[in-house]
């Protein structure tokens, strides 16, 4: 088993509404990277890629790609600024995007 430099997950945009989604268990696309399937090895990544490409082929999602994460307290957190913004919403409009669906921190 060869380790990846960084843990990876798969992401895409949902075909119908363009919403950012991540590949979760059982080939389901979920709306939060927290519950994405994390690959730590090349073998795991290739297996996940097959599931991600099926999502593309079956027209659930558009243009899936892999993205790096860090795992914090067992939860996948996007490693790049771009993917953090994509997972949350525009930093200038906290009332929009996925962040708007979360309760605001006290």
């Amino acid at each position, binding site marked *: 088993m060869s380790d990846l430099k960084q843990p990876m997950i798969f992401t895409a*945009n949902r*075909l*119908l*509404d*363009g*919403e*950012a989604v991540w590949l979760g268990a059982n080939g389901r696309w979920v709306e939060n990277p927290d519950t994405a399937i994390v690959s730590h090895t090349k073998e795991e990544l290739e297996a996940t890629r097959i599931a991600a490409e099926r999502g*593309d082929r*079956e*027209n659930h999602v*558009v*243009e899936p790609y892999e993205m790096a994460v860090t795992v914090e307290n067992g939860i996948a957190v996007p*490693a*790049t*600024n*771009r993917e953090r*913004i*994509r997972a949350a*919403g*525009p*930093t*200038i*409009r906290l009332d*929009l*995007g996925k962040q708007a669906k979360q309760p605001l921190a006290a």
Partner: protein
Amino acid sequence: MYRYDQFDRDFVKARVAQFRDQVERRVSGELSEDNFKPIRLQNGVYLQLHAYMLRVAIPYGTLNSTQMRMLAHIARKYDRGYGHFTTRQNIQYNWPALSDIPDILDDLASVEMHAIQTSGNCIRNVTADHFAGASGDEVADPRPYAEILRQWSTVHPECLFLPRKFKIAVIGSPKDRAAMQFHDIGLEVRRNDDGELGLRVYVGGGMGRTPMIGKMIRDFLPEADMLAYCEAILRVYNTYGRRDNKYKARIKILVHETGLDELKKDVEAEFERIRGGVLDLPQEDRDDIAAYFAEPDFEQLPAQSEAFEKAIAGDKGFARWAAQNVHAHKRDGYGIVTIAVKGTGEAPGDATDAQMEVMADLGERYSFDELRISHEQNVILPHVKLDDLPAIYATLVEAKLAASNAGLITDMIACPGLDYCALATARSIPVAQDISKRFADLDRQKEIGELKLKISGCINACGHHHAGNIGILGLDRRGVENYQITLGGSGDETAAVGEIIGPGFGAEQIGDAVETLVETYLGLRLTDDETFLQAYRRVGAAPFKASLYPPSHPKKQEAA
């Protein structure tokens, strides 16, 4: 303004029906994303970070109140209650569902609007001076030329699969308010020594990763030959433009690599071959199109307005707004209003549905039912009576649209940046918001005077940073946002590409860096009237560099 004829109506309607079918086939799986992507792009549909984005064309930035109300309706019904006016005089919606887009396009078609060719490797929405038909310095209204180009370029079979996107701008006065020389083709309407109308033609301008100023390829082109000459340019580009490398595919690279003289030889040869043929523009046809842009029914008014003068004397806020945002009109007793969609701390160019409704009402009531979108992301009321300005101002104050900053440092251009855009490498809007708040004091802005600040969130330069007197380019530097400053750029008739001043700054430092630049300028300008650009051109980069990177500054050491 131009009204659709039956052909236009049928064409746009058929195009919407076609796209509806294509969306259905995409959703059913009949079309793959590879098949569908070029189709959606040519209908203005992008896929961005959080959702699809729909870019709606506003040809040469001109629209009426019914159309503006429709833009508000779309923002409200299908999007998140706002839209973003862009540097191509278009509007973008950031959140539409793919399944709703055919309905949106149907709604747009009902008011003679569409999203055709707002993306893809084709001729994009033709832009023009936003003061067209209103400004006193105009040789002729550029919009009839832009409309003729729109008709010619829409689904022109030779121009739908160009090596890369292609942008055309038209101005009608020696003053360039449309960044014309930064376009693939730039046209300036002018008269020759015999008093005949024609066009000065520039080719090969552009921004992006390789910014270039357009080169004059024809000093005077008779009006009748406009389409033949443009088609000749497009044919040469289609033949020789590079398709092997998208970063070298724009016509500016072809002009640069081939040299203007050789390219001109090819263009002129093709032009001679096709001129006087089907692309000839007879006077009668030109007149027909120009009739759509006939002057509104202006009243004969005195040059001075008592109501206007009284409001200036009695209301400091109004006086400031009028001094900055009302521009001279060609007719006595009228003015041109810039509604700066740049409130303090707001995202440049973002307007809510309610604000769009207000602007539509103002256009309908006070400006002969006409509005414009400027490439500087503002909305223009082109023909308002001076008498009506106090009432307009009061309405704008109520709608939070009365920023008195047209042409000043907080009247910035900023692209959507990494908050929305899939191509961006850094955020633009938070930088704009920070600068907007820092320089919110109008007295300070007035003291600084005219200063064009433009921000892009990646090297593609949608925020026109190359043309900024101060340009800011957001980059990703090992995972951290970093902002590079360029100085001395200009998008006016003295067009210039800004020069990189030195190492970039972090998100926390870029605001301070802009403050330093402004303070340096204020300290070295010769008179209060010497603008930032004039001062920069006089003294060069050295004093600004010295202020930004003093010997003890870590950036200085980094640069060493």
